């Protein structure tokens, strides 16, 4: 198996597109590199990106920017130049405009459009180039019933918009079927926390019922449209509500025959092996006709989970060593692949080793490549997606949609990930050798 893993990994690596072709992307990368080298600068950058949508004018933007940069001890020359500009009103306007453009540019890298309608074109482009997508609607936190209703409406609109556009896409057999049957062209990811203002960690059933009320019509409509609905996982605070909702709702009589639906497992959770067993048991015994898709991810709320636990005096629910998460990811990958055809496995990772491992294990189990789905995030895993598509693998890109205000929390999280030295992307950028990239965790 390991020999296979190594050769799979190397061939994907060789298929990575070269970066020099896109000068704008290279510039972006430069800024990220600068940020990942200096923690103070990184903090200033994040705080600025975070406040951008709340600034009322270019002047206000420039003041915030220089405020944050004041706190950076060693300022690189371009930053010094920016500070000098802030002395005059005209300078601040210019600085504010440049900074706003910078943030917009960064946002566009991660966010595929402001609305589903706007996203249709880039989605079709990706499809033609061998990648399917799952659309994710970004939004402000849901704190009122009206906001939850609005999110549900936006989900409904996204389903309709995508379903209207998808029939015109060219045939891509790898993306629209596996050996169990057809796969929906339309795929939408939804967040339980956005569907109810009542989700509270100490009373999961209240939020669960409220969210289920808004989720049900979406599932029904997705079934009618032949679309796939994927229920995202968020922090541990909403874990019980989310799992409860999935098990309860998907088993309802009128939803048993459709639509295709999926859940997420987070490998950084210490409790994830038991959780996955629970999901597989459910998938084995449910009377649903379409197999549950299980997306395996590392987990995106690591800092939140650790800080929250530390402030309360709890043991963090996540592995604190990255290699423990990586090992667990591989163990769960195997469990998940072994559970096919009761579940359809989707491995979501930017880590070359994890991806190659999944492909190798799937082959070792005697399965078709087409029965494994690989997933990446827009803006972070584009090169990997291109390489996987070139290798004939089924790859799906998670594509967020939304405006700047709505997308800010998402953008900050992605930027954090992209500038972390521990991440696979960080290692790759630093030019770590292929042997190290593929080494066992």
């Amino acid at each position, binding site marked *: 198996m390991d020999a296979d893993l190594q050769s799979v990994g190397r061939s994907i690596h060789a298929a990575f597109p070269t970066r020099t072709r896109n000068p704008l992307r290279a510039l972006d990368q430069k800024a990220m590199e600068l940020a990942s080298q200096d923690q103070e600068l990184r903090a200033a950058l994040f705080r600025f990106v975070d406040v951008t949508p*709340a600034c009322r004018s270019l002047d*206000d933007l420039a003041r915030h920017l220089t405020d944050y940069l004041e706190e950076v001890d060693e300022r690189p020359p371009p930053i010094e130049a920016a500070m000098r500009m802030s002395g005059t009103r005209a300078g601040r306007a210019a600085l504010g405009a440049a900074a706003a453009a910078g943030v917009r540019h960064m946002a566009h890298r991660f966010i595929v459009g402001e609305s589903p309608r706007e996203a249709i074109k880039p989605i079709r482009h990706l499809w033609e180039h061998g990648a399917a997508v799952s659309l994710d609607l970004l939004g402000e936190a849901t704190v*009122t019933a*009206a*906001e939850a209703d609005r999110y549900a409406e936006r989900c409904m609109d996204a389903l309709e918009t995508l379903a209207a556009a998808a029939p015109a896409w060219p045939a891509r057999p790898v993306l629209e079927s596996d050996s169990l049957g057809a796969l929906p062209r339309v795929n939408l990811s939804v967040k339980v926390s956005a569907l109810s*203002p*009542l989700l509270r960690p100490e009373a999961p059933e*209240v939020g669960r019922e409220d969210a289920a009320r808004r989720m049900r019509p979406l599932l029904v409509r997705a079934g009618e449209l032949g679309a796939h609905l994927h229920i995202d996982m968020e922090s541990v605070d909403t874990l019980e509500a989310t799992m409860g909702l999935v098990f309860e709702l998907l088993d309802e009589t009128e939803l048993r025959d459709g639509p295709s639906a999926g859940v997420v497992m987070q490998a950084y959770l210490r409790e994830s092996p038991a959780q996955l067993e629970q999901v597989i048991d459910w998938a084995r015994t449910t009377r649903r006709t379409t197999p549950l898709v299980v997306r395996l991810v590392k987990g995106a709320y690591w800092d939140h989970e650790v800080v929250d636990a530390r402030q*309360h005096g709890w043991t963090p629910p996540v592995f604190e060593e990255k290699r423990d998460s990586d090992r667990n990811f591989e163990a769960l990958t195997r469990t998940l692949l072994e559970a096919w055809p009761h579940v359809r496995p989707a491995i979501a990772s930017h880590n070359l080793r994890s991806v190659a491992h999944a492909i190798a294990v799937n082959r070792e189990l005697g399965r078709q490549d087409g029965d494994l789905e690989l997933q990446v995030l827009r803006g972070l895993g584009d090169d990997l997606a291109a390489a996987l598509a070139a290798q004939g693998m089924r790859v799906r890109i998670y594509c967020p949609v939304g405006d700047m205000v709505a997308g800010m929390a998402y953008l900050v999280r992605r930027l954090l990930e992209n500038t972390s030295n521990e991440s696979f992307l960080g290692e790759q950028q630093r030019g770590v050798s292929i042997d190290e990239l593929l080494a066992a965790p």
Partner: protein
Amino acid sequence: MSFRNEPSLELRRAPVRESLTAALRELDARLPLEVSILIGGERGAASGLESTDPGAPERLVANAGSAGADEAAAAVAAAERGFREWSARSASERAEVLRGAAARLRERRLELAALQVRECAKPWAEADGDVCEAIDFLEYYAAEAVELDRGRELLQVPGERNTMRYSPRGVAAVIAPWNFPLAIPCGMTAAALAAGNAAVLKPAEQSPASAGMLVEALHGAGVPPDALALLPGYGEAGAALVRDPRVHVIAFTGSGAVGLEIVRAAAETPEGQHHVKRVVSEMGGKNCVIVDSDADLDDVVPELVHSAFGFAGQKCSAAARTLVHEAVADKLLERLSGAVRVLEVGQAESFSTEVPPVIDREAQERVLRYRELGADHLAASAERVPDQGWFVPPTVVYGLAEDSPVNREEVFGPLLSVTSVRDVDEAMDVVDSLPLALTGGLFSRSPATVERVAARTPVGNLYVNRGITGAMVGRQPFGGNRRSGVGSKAGGPDYLLQFVEPRIVTENTMRHGIPVE
């Protein structure tokens, strides 16, 4: 110092919630509890005072004694004896006893939380937080007292030795409120005892049972019977303690009216009283949260809702006013109103409850009176409120005149007044115009604004970009300024100084012109 906060219960885990529900069932089977007057280890009456469930007033939680002036005098007499015994022990011996009491509370923490759910309608998360805080106070002051016992370094010159040490004052009267029925009486009592004083505890009439369990833990861990007395009852015992010339320290937390009365009464120095009383008086707040235009409303709304309506606003730290920049006022009001409309108002024992009933009929009538004053400016109110129990619908009012009593006086209930301001400076002028200065909040993502507000605000505890309640021992020493308090900081490094007197000894070490050291 190796202090760390007691971890709260992880209520997001179903088995943890089930263990609490079971503890409540066990407690219910034992109700009503009995809380006797306890002086010098002698149990007195356990009748005269009834403690009931605010969510179901016909449910009797405890029968307690009702101490008056005679019991207060007897308790102080016993405490004078107890003081001699207790103060003779070393600081580290006393600290061990307090740590033992903390261990006893820890063993019973589910039961203690359940008792607060019943006796004060305190929702689980906050009841558990209260128990943790009580444990923290015991352990923190134990460690601080050992530290304080080392004294302070002074300047030394040849031929002279200067030492500074701290000695206990004597008998401390502790007069406690019901809203933190375990933590606050525990904090004030633990501080007095840790520093070597004897204590007479007079708990609020609404929460005698929680105080009973505290005293049980302290005696059980080794506090001598004479060194700690319990006087459940109404105001009479408290008033007698304040006037008693044998009392050295008065530690009070409660309303402004009573607190200021204590300050005045304690200033008397009748013939035969050989000391000036020290008063630690923690009173109310009119706490304002400033929201600047660059705030993240996704954070502001839930934090504000929790600060204003958690435990029905019955915390001295709770948010009473929001001063919001006009550029985001409409948006904030809309989202805040929507969030308040879906607040779950209900019995404290339900994990889904966010707003429980207020403590008693008097409180309900008071809050409803203030709510009526703002009726013309109602922005939002919860839709459903149970009809049994002392419930008040959580309410937001908007745009009330600055001189409205709703904007000036402490309401101590689930009522939040929102005011639009031109900018942060106008907001700070409003804060400055208030006589109370306990907690405050600021939501801003500008470091310059944060610094400007921090430098100017008169409040004792300013919270930036977070809720304004839930101070943690050792992390957020807590207490107000202006008419909110005397500036002492509970759970902080200088709190024990209120309970001791400094003594300096200067010794000439010269013998025949030669320094002998």
